[in-house]
């Protein structure tokens, strides 16, 4: 897994690539934590290049969602491929997260 950080306006963007599992999710959590500590909003997590994500990856995103909500910020996810979207649906998280189709849309107001 590789995480690249960018900024666009006030948006803190995390571009995630590869496989997110119990081995790699701590690195994603650590990088998100930095933006959460500085109260960035919106936080945008681009999953377009994620080939696999498991429940530890979901747990990391749920933690971030709760943290961003604590200061009134927003977390948006974009670029979910059909396999990743299916996981969100199985866990009924597609109704909980703000899912956007593109990074540009996710970085908007």
């Amino acid at each position, binding site marked *: 897994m590789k995480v690249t950080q960018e900024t666009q306006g006030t948006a803190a963007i995390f571009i995630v690539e590869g496989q997110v*599992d*119990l*081995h790699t999710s701590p690195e994603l959590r650590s990088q998100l934590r930095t933006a959460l500590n500085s109260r960035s909003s919106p936080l945008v997590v681009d999953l377009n290049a994620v080939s*696999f994500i498991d429940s*530890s990856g*979901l*747990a990391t995103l749920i933690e971030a969602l*709760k943290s961003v909500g604590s200061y009134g910020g927003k977390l948006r996810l974009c670029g979910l491929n059909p*396999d990743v979207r299916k996981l969100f649906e199985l*866990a009924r998280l597609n109704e909980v997260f703000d899912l956007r189709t593109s990074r540009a849309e996710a970085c908007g107001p």
Partner: protein
Amino acid sequence: MNEVRCTVPSDTAYLPMVRAMVTEGARLAGFDPETTHGILLAVTEAVTNVIRHAYGGEPDQRIDLLLGTRPEHFRLDIVDYGHFVDPSKIASRPLDDLRPGGLGVHLMKSIMDRVEYRPNAHGGTTLTLEKHAPAAKGSS
């Protein structure tokens, strides 16, 4: 004999290797990529639970994987040498209780046709995961 056996350490760094083996097993059994991805998720959740609950995160313990490869049928036995893990102790949280964790067993049961835990002769747990290809359901 249509079975592949391998042993991996209880180290999360080996999860991609487990998925590589499972991908090839599902391909040999004739599963489509979408179903294979679901199986990969279920197996990852299962092995992750072994690492966390049977071995308490210790990375140098033994996990045996026995992969059956008959057509249109996926079967994987995951054998650990820890202690028997009561399935009720790792039961899933209610889905509307939004908190990190507690989804692994729900995902396994949603995806696989059979998820069975039983104590094994090594003092640990054997978890069997089975999935039938859609066309094979009800015919075996």
